[in-house]
């Protein structure tokens, strides 16, 4: 099945692209999407994931058409 992958901030720069589509087997988890999307990066240390714009863990199951986003710890706000 196909899922949409998005990267933000430093991960977007490392991935070299803000978005791509990957194919993963039915029943795949966010961790498998990460591996498919970033074949050169073995570890997902300090990487956060969101599924359809909600935070999820890397063990969360994925469905066809989901948007999976990976990004570093957030640094918004000020003060």
């Amino acid at each position, binding site marked *: 099945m196909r899922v949409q992958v*998005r990267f*933000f*901030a*430093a991960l*977007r720069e490392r991935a070299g692209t803000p978005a791509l589509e990957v194919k993963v087997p039915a029943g795949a988890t966010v961790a498998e999407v990460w591996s498919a999307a970033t074949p050169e990066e073995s570890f997902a240390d300090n990487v956060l994931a*969101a599924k359809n*714009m*909600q*935070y999820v863990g890397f063990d969360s199951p994925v469905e066809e058409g989901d948007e999976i*986003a990976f*990004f*570093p*710890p*957030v*640094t*918004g*706000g*000020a*003060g």
Partner: protein
Amino acid sequence: MSVRVTDAAFEPWSQLAEYQREQAGRAAKTGATAVFVGSMRDFNEGDEVSGMFLEHYPGMTEKYLEKISATACTRWDLEDSLIVHRVGELSPGDPIVLVAVWSAHRKAAFEACRWLMEELKAKAPFWKKEQLAKGSRWVEHNTPG
């Protein structure tokens, strides 16, 4: 309850004046307004910072800010809340974030305003990249509150 993510510079006090004008008639019920404004400093971790790029996740960022605003309204007895967050290219001194909470009582206003800021900093999908004299760097973590 309003959430705004904007790539245009904003002046927090005129935003508040304008927002309250739109909500005319509420003032006499409210009693207490607590506000926090966070601005871009010209230093961080010992380095001079000359500019900043603020990235966000369009869609998720707004959803997250709306979620914490709604949660604040269930945890405290609030009349209203407003969150404004800047994105894009910023200069030192520019306001980055405005959190305002209206309530009948100051305890609820103070607590909810502070809680919203902590939730925003902890999980709202924004990322800062600082421009230094020697190149740029992504900010890796937020300061604790």
